[in-house]
């Protein structure tokens, strides 16, 4: 069992409601260094909201999130921005800055947030682009790229900040089927390199192969939490069995 100091994120009784709608009803978990966690569950179970609370794109209405002991829920201004620097995020819709070239997309935050020298940031960006085989697209605008290419660049953009954790919010859901593989390959490589990852995904194959922990969310709470074999081979609850029956045909 990993030691206490390996814990990066602690989530305690996390609650979130939008008006009367309770989306999170008390989520509890810890995320350790190097873990690859895939969050599964039916739509509306609260998976994306949970993920978006981790870097405060949503502000929870109750509970606490600690990033290496520091409160995310109560962080303000500069402290919050510094926490966000350390948590990279990849979105379903890529969200590359459409007014900037690929290279500028990647270097913008390192330069203006971290104050990295421009040439150094560009060198590193090119190196990262090499890792996803997109060096030739450095001068292109996002609109000139395919969905798979955009998502790989979005991953690189997040990596350029040297985050401690990467959050993926359904990174392949908006992709054409033939492009899903190229994005999952990059994520698998990232996992193999030891990156701590929290991935909301419907890709059960990826979850089974790459994750070392699966969280099954149901109705605003984590209903089951375990290694992929446990979750997929020996689901405890009827709800999980039912869900798996629907997604694994």
């Amino acid at each position: 069992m990993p030691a206490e100091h390996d814990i990066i994120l602690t989530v305690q009784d996390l609650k979130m409601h939008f008006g009367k709608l309770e989306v999170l009803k008390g989520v509890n978990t810890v995320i350790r260094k190097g873990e690859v966690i895939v969050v599964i569950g039916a739509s509306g179970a609260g998976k994306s909201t949970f993920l978006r609370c981790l870097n405060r794109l949503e502000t929870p209405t109750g509970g606490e999130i600690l990033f290496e002991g520091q409160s995310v829920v109560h962080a303000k201004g500069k402290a919050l921005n510094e926490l966000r620097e350390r948590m990279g995020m990849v979105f379903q819709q890529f969200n590359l800055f459409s007014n900037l070239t690929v290279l500028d997309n990647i270097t913008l935050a390192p330069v203006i947030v971290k104050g990295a020298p421009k040439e150094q940031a560009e060198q590193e960006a090119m190196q990262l682009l090499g890792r996803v085989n997109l060096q030739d697209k450095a001068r292109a605008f996002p609109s000139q790229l395919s969905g798979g290419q955009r998502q790989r660049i979005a991953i690189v953009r997040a990596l350029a900040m040297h985050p401690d954790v990467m959050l993926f919010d359904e990174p392949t859901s908006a992709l054409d089927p033939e492009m899903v593989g190229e994005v999952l390959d990059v994520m698998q490589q990232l996992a193999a390199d030891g990156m701590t990852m929290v991935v909301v995904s419907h890709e059960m194959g990826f979850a089974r192969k790459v994750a070392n922990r699966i969280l099954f969310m149901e109705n605003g709470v984590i209903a089951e939490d375990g290694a992929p074999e446990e979750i997929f081979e020996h689901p405890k609850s009827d709800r999980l069995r039912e869900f798996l029956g629907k997604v694994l045909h």
Partner: protein
Amino acid sequence: MNLNFSFLSKYWPMFLRGAGTTLVLSLFTVVLGLILGIFLALMRLGKFKPLSLLSAAYTEFIRGTPLMVQIFFIFYALPQIGVKIPNISGLGFDFPRFASGILAMGLNSGAYVGEIVRAGIQAVDKGQTEAARSLGMTSWQTMRRVVLPQAFKNILPALGNEFVTVIKESSIVTVIGITELMFNTSQVYSSSYRYFESLIVCALIYFVMTFTTSRLLGVLEGRMKRSAR
């Protein structure tokens, strides 16, 4: 009908000078309007309620009263209570008069530009802001580097229309005696009695200015479209 344009040989410098003044007036108005408009939009969309309300009230008030009243207010009413634009001598023209015209036009245009900018900002996908914030950028960095450049591209056509409108509407400052194109045209026809010809020339010059402006902006728009999206 006997039209005679021979008066132009004597009066053409009047038209030309008037057109020049109209252009300078419009240019300053547009710059002032744009700066004010961006501020109004940011205030309106900001989290601080009093500023947001102030921006909304300003916009409603300016749009709900005639430009002519606003011009007279600045030129006649404010000096009465002691708010005067100081004269700068040696410029060769009546600075307070000219500045009043620009100020009134700019304050007016700003209200319209503000609404254009606001719509442009709101049209930028929320995901762009989320991505920027998730990288640790501040809200101002996000606004300046990501949202405003995209908003600007969205609003360029509407902004172009506003520029064209300003050129045309600037003819109204003739009422406070600024010697722009409309004013000079009236000078020409009242001394030459060539009403028809003078106004034809005046209209043609306005048209050339507005048409050129909208064409130039069209080119700019096309260029931006090609570079991104």
